[in-house]
């Protein structure tokens, strides 16, 4: 069952340039910045209240995000809803024969994820995710000479 809007995804051409607006000008704190090799994207997660803005820069040609950027340019790409059981939700969508991009859930930046096909949602690209709980890092200071 859907619990909340987990994040909205924005495709950008240049992460450094995008960070100047979303992080520096708007002042949104960045809590994750990494390159996900298997998805061919550089991704940044910025906190806004109890939701997030996800900036995505394609770093490999031929991925969905790269094709989006090439054909449509930069812009709002998808909305992701947090679910308490993404596998059950995906099964329910299959039972109703909803058109899907992912037939199985997979691991993404937001946890276990799957995408619906935009044709199923009047052109909107919808992602479902179930965050994976991570144990808190040890409290010791990371900065060591």
């Amino acid at each position, binding site marked *: *069952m*859907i*619990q*909340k*809007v987990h994040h*909205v995804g*924005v*495709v950008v*051409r240049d*992460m*450094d*340039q*995008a*960070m*100047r*607006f*979303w992080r*520096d*000008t*708007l*002042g*949104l*704190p*960045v*809590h*994750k910045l990494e390159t996900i090799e298997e998805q061919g994207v550089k991704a940044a997660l910025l906190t*806004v*209240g*109890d*939701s997030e*803005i996800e*900036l995505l820069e394609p770093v490999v040609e031929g991925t969905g995000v790269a094709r989006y950027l090439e054909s*449509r*340019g*930069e*812009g*709002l*790409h*998808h*909305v992701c809803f*947090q679910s308490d059981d993404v596998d059950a939700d995906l099964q329910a*969508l299959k039972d*109703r024969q*909803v058109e899907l991009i992912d037939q199985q859930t997979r691991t993404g930046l937001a946890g276990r994820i799957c995408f*619906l096909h*935009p044709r*199923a*949602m*009047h*052109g*909107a*690209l*919808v992602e479902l995710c179930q965050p994976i709980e991570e144990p808190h*890092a040890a*409290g*010791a*200071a*990371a*900065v060591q*000479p």
Partner: protein
Amino acid sequence: MNFTLDHVVIGVRDLEAATDHYAALFGRTPSWRGEHPTYGTRNTLFRIENTYVELLSMAKDAKSSQVAGELPRFLERGEGVYALALGSADIAADVRELRNRGIPAQQPVEGHGIDQISGARRDWKNAMVPVKSTNGARIFFIEHVSPPDALPEAAVAVTGQTYVRRMDHAVVLSPDMESAKRLWSGVLDARLALDRTFPERNTRILFFRLGDITIEMSGGATQTEEGLGKPDRLWGLAWGVGSVEETVLRLRAQGIDVSDPRRGIKPGTKVATVKGVHTHGVATLLIEHTEESFQPASRRPQGAAFDNDPGRRAFALKALDHVSLAVDDGEAAARTWRDTLGLSESEAFQTTGAHMRLSKIPAGNAFMELVQPLKSEGRVATHIASRGPGMFGVALEVDDVDRAVADLRAKGVTVSDSEYGAWPGTRTARIDPSSANGVNVVLVQRLPEIL
């Protein structure tokens, strides 16, 4: 008070070796080789573009008891950054003000140095402060009496972009970050330019600017109990070079241990770490700025755009308010959302003048807004005509939309005047998508309910 980073003092045991090492590291010959008969110390100075570096050792054959200050005790423990000298234009006035602010600065005293090679003399006045009053990091204040050109820039002795041009930043490790903030920002008037926490690295970083040099204060992401009141430590120095890659090659050819070049944490920078005996206990980084990085020259037109300290921001972004979807049939789209995802429309209405049908689909922390244009002109109709129905924009809640508009305009963002929003009880302003990576961003201020 308006201090500069006048110079940095590195405490070394063997001045001859350190002079050779830093001459090789900088790619420059020293500006000055001096003695301080009255202090019992000797030094070598390198003036670079924006500050100078003092290698300081005890005078030859000097006994610890004959050396002024805490240098002997410091050198017993090791070498490294010994002190930061903050430059003052009127040291007597600044000492008075420091005392007003609770720093027991000593009365300024006159000093001078003689260059062993040229015989030239330089005069200054400096004022010491107890190291306890500056959180354990040794800081003193200096006003030069001699003109700046009395200390010439250290001659460049290498070819290409392989010499150290300037100091980029000095790194201070702080176990008590709030105390550091109070000292540097509240007492020393250094401009706090950044306060950022990196949870995944368990690091919080504060940037304070002294002229074009940054004092980077680094500590844990969260304040630990045991860190409170613990002393800061002058730890590292970062040197600006024209080309990190060329400099790494040059240093390696001279037998200096240096890492491969890599991308810096700051966007648009390249860095490499110098290791081994040449650093004399200083954590040493070479840094190259490119056009996109936070160089002082490129930062200026951005105004305060890089100031991320919440306390200094003109407005606060509180929440994701809603996500807008452009649809060509609002009722059909609402049925799809209900049947597919179990999210139901809670209200729908036509805007004044029947330009649009708007509806709201609550989704926990935010809502989905379905926007169906009812006329062929307008932003949403144009969007559907060119891109088809689908993702349209995001609305972010701010605490004060007018302050946000003024602040963003000052930073070069194209943003509309604020107006009453389509949803009751809101004032909104639109950021032009050209400023926001193609995204239609609306700022929403929720007004207090009128009873």
